[in-house]
């Protein structure tokens, strides 16, 4: 049986133009990697939107990061002031990572 370690799965929903900025913060707290997923469409209090738009300014993405508890905490502390002004949606869940000691 392979051994797993418990880590945090951080999911940040963010406007696509802001992705590099969030990743800049993630690097500051030394998170080892990230993956970006495009959102096709969505809706919220501000109305609905679709990705099929010529102006990328309205596009949204999810940034996915696996990190240990400490780094996850540092990242949320760093991003907290931006949550409202940049309308981020930040969720954290527990996951088992197989042989994930490097995170």
């Amino acid at each position, binding site marked *: 049986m392979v051994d797993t370690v418990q880590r945090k799965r951080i999911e940040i929903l963010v406007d696509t133009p*802001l992705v590099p900025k969030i990743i800049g913060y993630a690097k500051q707290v030394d998170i080892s990697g990230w993956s970006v997923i495009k959102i096709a469409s969505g809706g919220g209090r501000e*109305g609905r939107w679709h990705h099929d738009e010529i*102006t990328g*300014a309205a596009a949204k993405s999810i940034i996915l990061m696996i990190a240990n508890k400490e780094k996850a905490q540092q990242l949320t502390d760093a991003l907290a002031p*931006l949550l409202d002004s940049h309308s981020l949606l930040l969720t954290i869940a527990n996951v088992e990572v197989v042989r994930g000691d490097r995170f």
Partner: protein
Amino acid sequence: MIIETLTSPVILFFILGFLAAAIRSDLAIPEAFAKAMSIYLMAAIGLKGGVEVASTGFSIDLAAAAISGILLGFTLPILAFFMLRSFGKLGAIDAGAVSAHYGSVSVVTFVTAIELLTVQGIRPDGFMVGVMALMEMPAIITGLLLARAYSQRLKSDNSLDTGPGTNLMHEVLTNGSVVLLLGAFIIGFIAGAEGFAPIKPLFDVGFKGVLCLFLLDMGLIAARRLLETRKVTIRLATLAIVLPIINGTMGTIVGTLIGLDPGSAAILGVLCASASYIAVPAAMRLALPQADPGIYLAMSLGITFPFNILFGISLFAAIAKFLG
């Protein structure tokens, strides 16, 4: 000219898109296809402009137009800012963001105007493509400075510090559409008419047809933006029509004063009247994330863009002819 405009297929496709979205049809142009068309259109106008300048040579007109364009880009947002704050009742941050859009330019409005003016027999000079590229960015700086000067909230923190991993000035100067437009312009200039000949078929044959399909998409996007907004008041909607009229008239007058031919003066007016909906929104999301995209996209894309396509271009052409 209004009648001619409204029955040309290019404009009819825009209207088709607009109506399709208005009846909530699911017609959609894939995003990658729309981007491909915009790359094609920018490469085509850049190349043609460069080839033309290669044959006519650099002129004093070119320099005058370029300098005027940049100065207009820097100054037009100021008037817009104060109108948006007083009449439009926007806060400093939103007013700064919106004014940056109106100081910058819309490539598709420019291309459509070139087509319509050419049909009218007042074809603008090739170098105006270069002027357009130079006008994309100055307004961003003015808009940010205004927001920062008048917002209590931004005064406390540093609005131009966009955090780690990003650098606004760099984004602004290396913006994809600026690089592509100027790059294609320079390639056209180096290649000249002879070097351009082998690749000309693609950029000639497809041009107007692609513009039709692209405007179909723009119609869909503009109408959806307008329908889904909950942010645009009657006052803001009024400004989204008044601002292009003011800016466009000023641009056309300046163009005439510096000695441009009527077509080029009209296109300078169109550039001033048009509002950005690609480069500036992305820059604002980064530099002024507190500003509400719902406002600036609905105004520039939902109202000003259709207004210019349907009426503005004809208006500035008439003014330029009258003055010229």
